[in-house]
C-alpha cells in the first residue's frame, strides 16, 4: 500500500506540474498574440487616441463602419464583440482606461442587451489569459463564484473555457493566424441573406436597470468621455417592437435609431444589418451626431 500511496503522490505531482507548465505556456502564447480578437488587440496596445469608439455586441460589430467616420476626420475603431453583453463592454472600457487610451466619444449600443444583467461566457473566456497580469480584469471578476479557482488553480481557466481558449485557439495564436476581427477597423460586414427574414421575438423582453451600463456611465463621466448610448436597427417584422419605447422609460438618455434603416433588403437577419445596411445606418448616425471636420 505504501508503494501505491507513493505512486499516487507522484502521479498527483505530475498532474500539478503538467498543469503549471501548460498554464505558463498558454499564457505566454496568448500574451504575445494581438491579431486574433479585439480583446488581445486591446490588451497588447497602449496609449491610443480615438475620437470615436463603438462598444456593444454583434449589433455593433456588424453595424458600425468606422471608415465613414475616419473619412470625415474622426479616428474611429469598432470594438463591438459578437455575443458580448454590457458586462463585457464595461470591462473593455475599463481595460482601455488601464491601457491609457484617450477617447473623446463612445457610441454604446444599449437596446436588447439591457433585458438582462447576465454575462457572456464566450466573451468572458477571452479575458481569462490575462487574469494574472491585469489588475483590472481581476477586479472585474472578483465577485464571480469561480474566481478563486480561476485565479489559483493552474490551468483551470483554460480548462473551464476550453471551447474558446483551448488547444485549438492556442495553436492559431501561436502561429499568429489572423482573423477578420481587426479588419475594416473592427467592422465585420455580413452578407445579404437571400431567404425571408425570420422575425425576432421580443415578447419576453423588458428593459431593466443595468449594472454594467451604469458602470460605463460612471467611467465615462470620471474620464471625461462623451457617452452616446444608442439603439440599433432591427427588422420591422419584429414581435413587440414596443420594447424600444419601454427603454426610454428606464433610460431616457438613450438615442433611438432602431428605425434608422427599415427596408428588409438592408438586413442579413432580423437583428443584423448586411454590409449595405451597415453603411446606410452609419451614415445616419454620423449625420445625426457628428459633423465633418
Amino acid at each position, binding site marked *: *500500500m505504501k*508503494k*501505491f500511496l507513493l*505512486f*499516487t503522490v507522484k*502521479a498527483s505531482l*505530475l*498532474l500539478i506540474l*503538467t*498543469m503549471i507548465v*501548460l498554464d505558463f505556456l498558454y499564457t505566454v502564447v496568448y500574451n504575445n498574440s494581438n491579431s486574433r480578437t479585439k480583446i488581445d488587440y486591446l490588451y497588447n496596445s497602449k496609449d491610443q487616441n480615438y475620437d470615436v469608439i463603438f462598444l456593444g455586441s454583434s449589433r455593433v460589430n456588424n453595424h458600425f463602419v468606422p471608415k465613414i467616420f475616419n473619412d470625415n476626420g474622426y479616428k474611429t475603431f469598432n470594438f463591438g464583440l459578437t455575443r458580448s453583453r454590457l458586462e463585457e463592454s464595461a470591462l473593455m472600457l475599463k481595460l482601455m482606461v488601464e491601457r491609457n487610451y484617450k477617447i473623446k466619444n463612445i457610441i454604446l449600443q444599449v437596446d436588447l442587451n439591457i433585458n438582462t444583467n447576465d454575462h457572456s*461566457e464566450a466573451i468572458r*473566456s477571452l479575458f481569462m489569459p490575462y487574469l494574472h497580469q491585469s489588475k483590472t480584469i481581476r477586479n472585474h471578476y472578483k465577485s464571480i463564484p469561480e474566481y478563486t479557482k480561476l485565479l489559483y488553480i493552474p*490551468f483551470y481557466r*483554460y*480548462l*473551464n*473555457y*476550453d*471551447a*474558446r481558449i*483551448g*488547444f*485549438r485557439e492556442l495553436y492559431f495564436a501561436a502561429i499568429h493566424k489572423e482573423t477578420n476581427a481587426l479588419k475594416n477597423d473592427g467592422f465585420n460586414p455580413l452578407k445579404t441573406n437571400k431567404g425571408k427574414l425570420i422575425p425576432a421575438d421580443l415578447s419576453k423582453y423588458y428593459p431593466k436597470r443595468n449594472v454594467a451600463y451604469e458602470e460605463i456611465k460612471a467611467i465615462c463621466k470620471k474620464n471625461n468621455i462623451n457617452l452616446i448610448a444608442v439603439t440599433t436597427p432591427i427588422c420591422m417584422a419584429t414581435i413587440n417592437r414596443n420594447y424600444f419605447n419601454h427603454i426610454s422609460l428606464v433610460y431616457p438618455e438613450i438615442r433611438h435609431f432602431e428605425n434608422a434603416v427599415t427596408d428588409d433588403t438592408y438586413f442579413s437577419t432580423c437583428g443584423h444589418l448586411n454590409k449595405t445596411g451597415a453603411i446606410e445606418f452609419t451614415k445616419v448616425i454620423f449625420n445625426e451626431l457628428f459633423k465633418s471636420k
Partner: protein
Amino acid sequence: MFFNSFHFAIFLPIVFILYWFIGNKSKINQNFILILASYYFYSCWDYRFLFLLIFSTLLDYVSAIKIENSVTQKQRKFWLWLCISINIGFLGIFKYYNFFIASFTDLLNSVGLHSNPLLLNVILPVGISFYTFHGLSYIIDIYYKRIKPEKNFVDYSLFVSYFPLLVAGPIERATHLLPQLKVRRKFNFEKAKEGIYQIIWGLVKKVVIADTCANYSNEIFNNYNSMNSLSLLLGAVYFAFQIYGDFSGYSDIALGTSKLFGIDLLKNFNYPYFSRDIAEFWRRWHISLTTWFRDYLYIPLGGSKGSKWFQIRNVFIIFLVSGFWHGANWTFIAWGFINALYFIPLLLLNRNRNNIDAFKIGFNFSSLKIIFNIGITFAITCFAWIFFRAKTIHDALSYIKRMFTDLHFSPQYFSIERYSYELVLMLFLFIVVEWNSRTKIEPISGKYSWLKFGLCLAAIVALGVFSDYKEFIYFQF
C-alpha cells in the same frame, strides 16, 4: 455522478481509503463499504430509483432460492418465469411502453383508425438495462443448475449494484464476479497501478476523443441537410470514434476503478475497429452484451445448429433484439438489422469464425489483405452507425442519400466555428496509439510508463472537452 466528474474524483479516493484502511479486516466490511458506496453512487442520479434497484435485487435473490428449493420442475419454471416477467416488465414499462403505444397508434392511424394514446411521462432509471440483465443471467444460471444460489444477501446485492458496473456495465456473470466477492480482497500494487493507468486511458478516450468528436458529429448530424458529401462522410467517422471512445472509455474507467478494489471485471472491448470482418467486430465490441445474448438467447434458440434457415432466423433475432436493447427507437432496430445483413453472408459461407487468431502485420501481401479487410469492416460499421445516431429512419436515409448524391468534397466551416476536417490528424494519432498497444489493455504500461502517463495527463487537461459537458452515451440505455 459521472466517472469524468469532479464529484467522482472526490468520491473514489474516499471509498478507496474507507475500503482499504477501515474495511480491510474482513470481506464483510469490504462488501458493506462497497454496497453503501454503490447505493450512494446510484442515488446521486435519482434516489427514488434506488428502491427499484433494491426491489430488483430482492426479487432475484428470493427467486433464486425458491428455484433451488423447488421440489418439482413445474415449481422451478414458475419461479423462473415470475422473476423474468417482473424484470422484463419493469424494463418494458420504463423503457419501451411509450414506444409500443406510439407505434401501435401510428399503425392504427395508418389504417384510418384514430386514437389518443396514453403515453407515460416516465424517466428511464439509469442503468436499468444493465442491472436487469445482471439479474436475469443469474436467475437463468440457477435454473439450469450452472451455479448455486447466493445465500448471503449482502454479497448478492453487491454483485448487482457494484458501482463501477452499475450504470453502463460490463454486464457481469455470477460465475465470474460472485466468487471474487466471497473472499477478502488483498491489496495488490501492480493491479492497482494497472487500474490507475486504465482509468487515465479511459479518460483520454472519453474527454479527448469522444467528446471532441461529439462536437463535430452533433453539428453534422443535426444539420445534415446543409452538409456536403465530405462532411457527411466525416460525420459518420466522427460518430464511430465518439461512440467507441465514449463507451470503451467508460468501460476502461469501470474496469480500472474496480481493480483499485482488487476486483476484476469482464473485458468489454478488444480494439473492435481492428476487426477483419463483422463477426470479429462483434467478438470485440461490447463483449459482455454480445456474449450475454449468445449464451442466454442465441444458444437456447438453437444457435448455429439446425438448417441454414434456422440459423439465419436466429442471427436476425439476436441482432434485432440487441438493437432494441439499446433503446426504444426504430433506428436501433434498423442498426441491428443491418448488422445481421452483414453477418449472414459470413454465416452462409461458414466464414464467421475465420478471424479468431491474432494477426501480425509485415511487408507482404497477406498484411495488405488484412489492412484492406480492416478498412472495409470499419467502413460498413460506420455506415451502420448512421442509423444508430440518426433521430429517425427518415433522417438516416436522407443523410445517406445526401452523402452519395451531393458529391462536393470541399472543407466546410461549421456554425460551431470549426472546419469539418479538423479532427482527422487527432484521430490518426489515436489509431496509431491504439494499433501499437492492441495486444495490451492500455498503452501506458511498459517502457517509459511515466512519460506516457504524463502525456496522457497533458492530453486530458489540454485537449479534453470540459466546458461543454457530455454524458456517457450508454447511460441512456
